[in-house]
């Protein structure tokens, strides 16, 4: 991975060393066969503005409108980051600048392009610098000094000072005042209460000599923005409009493809369930057809057979001689009884029920028939003032 810092000159970090690439040098030759790169851009314009967080389309529209109100002369590519509830930091890089970067570094090799302020803020957070207080960072590069003011997540446009031009202190104060003027409605901090951080020890001492009341700290990182690029934690990355459209198209295509695949999957799941149940239905249906045909054939066979054998079958069922049965029972009945009624009827077997009444002025004698008939019952009964016996015989 290579890291670039784009200002008037370009700083390239590779393999732990940072080189300053002079203007006009063939930058493409430095890119060569590199794998991936990250870049930060110093020249950015920033506004802090309020906008509704939802819906996203409305938020974007408000942020773009407000940014364009301030920077209407040139084409910008803008990105935003949430600072607080309904408060956004809108950062724009001139389209010309982005095109310039992408003309040197091909899009497929450039992982992200971020504002210098974000890269710097990243290293400050990593180094656990207190951003709760306003902080002015002076990045001492080879030929220039970059002054950026931070207030929490908010940061100012970076002021660039050529080395040795004039005293640094007024520039620091001017930067702070400008920044606080811009964000006064969105901050609770006072202008007087700020920290100055420098990445050059001599410069830090020099500032202290000029103004000993200032709270000056030294950060031991030579190229803090480049270091901040190494472990980026932001979604912001600037791309060319056509690249954004291409990515959007790709994303839409991917979404559509996903939808189609999901839809096909859903249909396939339903279809599989249907086929899974339809298969056995066909098998059972065919089996049922065969069984039903067999049933029809057997019924026809039985009908033909029944017509042929019913006479013989009837004969075989006619085993009970009613006359003999009746007379056999009468033989067991004493003469003191007379027959009242009888009935032959069929359940599973033939049943013979007979009722006998005692003749007037005769004894009510016992009737013993169990020896002659296997299944017989004798019960007493009383009818028309006459006692009697009811006998039931079952012919199994």
């Amino acid at each position: 991975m290579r890291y670039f810092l784009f200002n008037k000159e370009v700083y390239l970090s590779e393999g732990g060393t940072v080189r300053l690439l002079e203007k006009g040098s063939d930058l493409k030759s430095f890119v060569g066969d590199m794998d991936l790169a990250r870049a930060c851009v110093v020249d950015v314009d920033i506004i802090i503005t309020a906008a509704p967080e939802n819906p996203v389309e409305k938020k974007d529209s408000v942020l773009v409108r407000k940014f364009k109100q301030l920077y209407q002369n040139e084409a910008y590519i803008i990105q935003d980051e949430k600072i607080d509830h309904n408060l956004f930091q809108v950062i724009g890089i001139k389209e010309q600048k982005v095109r310039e970067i992408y003309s040197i570094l091909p899009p497929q090799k450039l992982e992200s392009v971020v504002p210098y302020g974000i890269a710097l803020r990243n290293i400050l957070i990593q180094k656990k610098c207190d951003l709760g207080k306003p902080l002015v960072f002076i990045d001492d590069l080879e030929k220039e000094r970059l002054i950026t003011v931070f207030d929490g997540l908010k940061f100012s446009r970076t002021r660039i000072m050529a080395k040795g031009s004039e005293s640094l202190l007024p520039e620091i104060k001017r930067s702070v005042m400008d920044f606080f003027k811009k964000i006064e409605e969105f901050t609770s901090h006072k202008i007087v209460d700020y920290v100055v951080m420098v990445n050059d020890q001599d410069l830090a001492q020099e500032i202290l000599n000029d103004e000993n009341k200032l709270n000056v700290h030294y950060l031991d990182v030579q190229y803090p923005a480049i270091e901040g690029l190494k472990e980026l934690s932001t979604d912001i990355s600037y791309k060319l409009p056509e690249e954004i459209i291409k990515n959007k198209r790709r994303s839409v295509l991917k979404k559509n493809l996903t939808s189609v695949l999901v839809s096909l999957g859903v249909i396939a799941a339903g279809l599989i369930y249907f086929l899974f149940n339809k298969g056995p239905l066909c098998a059972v249906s065919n089996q049922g057809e065969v069984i039903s045909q067999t049933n029809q054939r057997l019924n026809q066979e039985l009908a033909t057979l029944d017509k042929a054998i019913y006479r013989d079958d009837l004969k075989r069922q006619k085993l009970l001689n009613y006359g003999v049965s009746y007379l056999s029972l009468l033989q067991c009945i004493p003469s003191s009884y007379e027959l009242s009624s009888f009935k032959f009827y069929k359940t599973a077997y033939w049943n013979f029920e007979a009722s006998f009444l005692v003749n007037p002025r005769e004894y009510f004698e016992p009737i013993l028939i169990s020896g002659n008939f296997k299944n017989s019952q004798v019960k007493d009964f009383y009818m028309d003032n006459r006692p009697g016996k009811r006998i039931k015989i079952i012919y199994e």
Partner: protein
Amino acid sequence: MNKTIIFLALLISIVFIHLGHCAKARTDSLQAENVQFQKDNDRLRDVIMNKQSLMKASPVDLVKEYMIVINQIRLVESYNGTIMHVQLEEGIKNADNLSKHFIETEYKGVKGLNIQITVDQIAKSLDLGEILNDFYLLEMNTDLKILEIQKQANSLIVKGKIYGI
């Protein structure tokens, strides 16, 4: 658009799942029917096997068999002086079209006709045993099957079924 596609896919899937459910329910129902049919087939095979040992004979026309039964009864009447009258079980004495009264029997393709014979008067020379014996002989000589014989007070009623095609 994508949501519509997924929604339509879901609808189609739901239709397939519904059809699958229907197919499953139909399969279960058919399976139960098949088991029932199979049991019936087994029963029919047993019945056919048992009946095959019986003697085969040509079936008799039911009207003709009815006339035979009536003739036999008249023969018994003339022979021993008993007076009987025959009617269909529903109480119809002289049916013009007997076939209207045919019923299904336990034999497939064989019809039945329920009749009722009422013995109005028994000859003095006979006792009930002999009359009952005559009915036994009537049953043995024809395709009449006696189902019930009942004697109450002075009447003797015999119910039976004549078989034929």
